[in-house]
């Protein structure tokens, strides 16, 4: 049993490493000469999905987990497209909400109980990582939030309850909250806000966590209707590029956040580098600290 455990830890670390590497690859592909390679990015998202699925499967006993996923899969209409589940942006948010470099005993995307008794809530939390906002403004890392993360207020004594607890950051509202057994409390935020008090966290993330296959060429792909049989003339292609239809606007928004195009520029500047930097710091930290090992694994 011990061997299996250490193998599992090794695999878990490898999966974690793969997620980090994959996100970097996607990020660096955006600045590659020749434009983003759709094929390579697609393959990288498969690795991301696989690594993430591996982590998810380690958080609960096998049977419970499988059952949960079958439910998820069952509601989807087209099975073939659901091989990918989990949002790319969600993943990077997982990193963010867990790896800010801050030390906190309760800092985990809490799925793991100290006594090894996972709960129903735990699973939901793990898969959702509590993005309270339905829109995936995940990749937005407003500077205010970073400063919030750096402040010692980030390490406010959060009651270290034996019950399941997790602390999350809503990138939309810049509110940091702690969810305890399904209830969340507002802890701190960069901007003064009404504390929300204990509310029943009934708003779960959609369980159909579909991957946003980031069409890296948001700004260029065919915005017009898909041709059936027709000759594509040069004129057609130019006019296609000129139009933005609603499908692609929603793509843009879902990836870029509710700020939409106006924040695209700031996103590119702020971007994932900060996430990675913070994540790297925390990874190193957790690896050096013995007990951090468990926390790092628990994050997923």
């Amino acid at each position, binding site marked *: 049993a011990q061997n299996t455990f250490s193998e599992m830890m090794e695999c878990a670390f490898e999966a974690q490493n793969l997620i980090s590497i994959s996100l970097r690859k996607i990020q660096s592909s955006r600045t590659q000469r020749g434009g983003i390679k759709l094929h390579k990015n697609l393959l990288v998202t498969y690795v991301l999905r696989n690594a993430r699925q591996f982590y998810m499967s380690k958080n609960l006993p096998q049977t419970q987990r499988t059952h949960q996923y079958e439910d998820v899969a069952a509601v989807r209409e087209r099975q073939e497209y659901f091989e990918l589940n989990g949002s790319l942006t969600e993943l990077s948010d997982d990193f963010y909400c867990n790896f800010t470099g801050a030390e906190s005993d309760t800092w985990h995307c809490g799925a793991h109980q100290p006594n090894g008794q996972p709960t129903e809530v735990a699973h939901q939390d793990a898969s959702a990582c509590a993005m309270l906002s339905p829109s995936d403004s995940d990749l937005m890392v407003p500077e205010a939030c970073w400063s919030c993360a750096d402040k010692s207020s980030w390490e406010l004594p959060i009651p270290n309850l034996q019950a399941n607890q997790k602390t999350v950051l809503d990138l939309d509202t810049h509110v940091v909250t702690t969810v305890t057994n399904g209830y969340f409390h507002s802890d701190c935020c960069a901007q003064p806000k009404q504390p929300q008090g204990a509310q029943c966290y009934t708003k779960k993330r959609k369980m159909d966590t579909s991957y946003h296959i980031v069409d890296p060429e948001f700004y260029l792909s065919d915005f017009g209707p898909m041709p059936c049989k027709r000759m594509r*003339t040069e004129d057609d292609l130019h006019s296609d590029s000129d139009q933005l239809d609603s499908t692609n606007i929603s793509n843009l928004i879902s990836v870029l956040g509710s700020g939409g195009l106006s924040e695209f520029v700031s996103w590119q500047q702020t971007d994932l580098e900060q996430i990675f930097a913070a994540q790297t710091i925390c990874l190193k930290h957790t690896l050096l600290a013995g007990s951090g090992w468990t926390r790092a694994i628990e994050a997923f």
Partner: protein
Amino acid sequence: MAGAGGGTSDVQWCFSQVKGAIDDDVAEADIISTVEFNHSGELLATGDKGGRVVIFQQEPESKNQPQCRGEYNVYSTFQSHEPEFDYLKSLEIEEKINKIRWLPQNAAQFLLSTNDKTIKLWKISERDKRPEGYNLKEEDGRYRDLNTVTTLRVPIFRPMDLMVEASPRRVFANAHTYHINSISVNSDCETYLSADDLRINLWNLEITDRSFNIVDIKPANMEELTEVITAAEFHPNQCNTFVYSSSKGTIRLCDMRASALCDKHAKQFEEPEDPNNRSFFSEIISSISDVKFSHSGRYMMTRDYLSVKIWDLNMESRPVETYQVHEYLRSKLCSLYENDCIFDKFECCWNGNDSVVMTGSYNNFFRMFDRVYRQDVTLEASRENSKPRSVLKPRKVSTGGKRKKDEISVDSLDFNKKILHTAWHPLDNIIAVATTNNLYIFQEKLN
């Protein structure tokens, strides 16, 4: 063990030539990106990352050295594609030549070359005479003063030093949103296809301002994208048939007679995945990097990261033959993912009579699989083995346990030295193998 070869079991391969810079410092523009023999094998074209095409021509066999087939010497060099900038999309378009395909031979030589976005038809023609004796022009081209013209003469052609000219005859542009990965000339010699990640277009060689879209796998919602097109090729003698491979490891055969838009395949070739081999990287290593019909048209070959598979067009459920190229890499996939090697797109090729297939690997190794004699061999393209007519010694990678003498261990392999592009002469046992920036030519040892 003797080398694998066509027809007989004991073909030995000898070094013939190497082209390219010797120094280890590789200029990025010199990285070879495609290699292709023409239909007679007399011409050998290479494309590189800098957008250049270099064509080598085989010298006629000399009576002095009947043992040696003619050498390949530079015939023509030209800049096919230049770097471009798409202002509308803020995208730089690389000049790298992705593929070269020769047209069937006519009086002059024609080839198609493509980068990520634009295909060009080049005419390669020779000029060995020039007209002299114009009445109104001097020899250097200046116009003569008409008052000095007192007699008339008929200009005549005089021989001159051979000049090989490459001129762009057609430019097929603006038809691909995504990156072009394949071009293939139809056996009808009138049309060709070009394939990008999501679409395949059919062109007429004479018409540049329009093409037919014949395959479109782009989903209505890009979030639902699960696979891309990785390669496509026309059947060698059925002008209505073509195949395209996908990143999911499937090959679809389409018949253009069935409908104008060939989204519905006539056949789908797919081998179920072995669940024991499941890993984080299963999807990546099953992605097909190349597909090639046999010359007969009965079979096709696919290359994925670790293996080469031969498919019978009459059987869709599984390949008829599978050859492991470098199975020892299966345990190294994580490192290969980190250093991006797992995304390398290896090509493969058939010999003239479809009895042997060849593909590249790392450490400048390349592999040949003899389908008839069930033998395989690993050879190396290196400057150390570059003595003229020296026989190539088979190489072996030790996969664990004791490493025998002359074997190389997996951890010693140089993953920066990769052979992605190889070509086999259509008729003879002559092969062209491209390392990063050098082109090696090997020939069968003739006694």
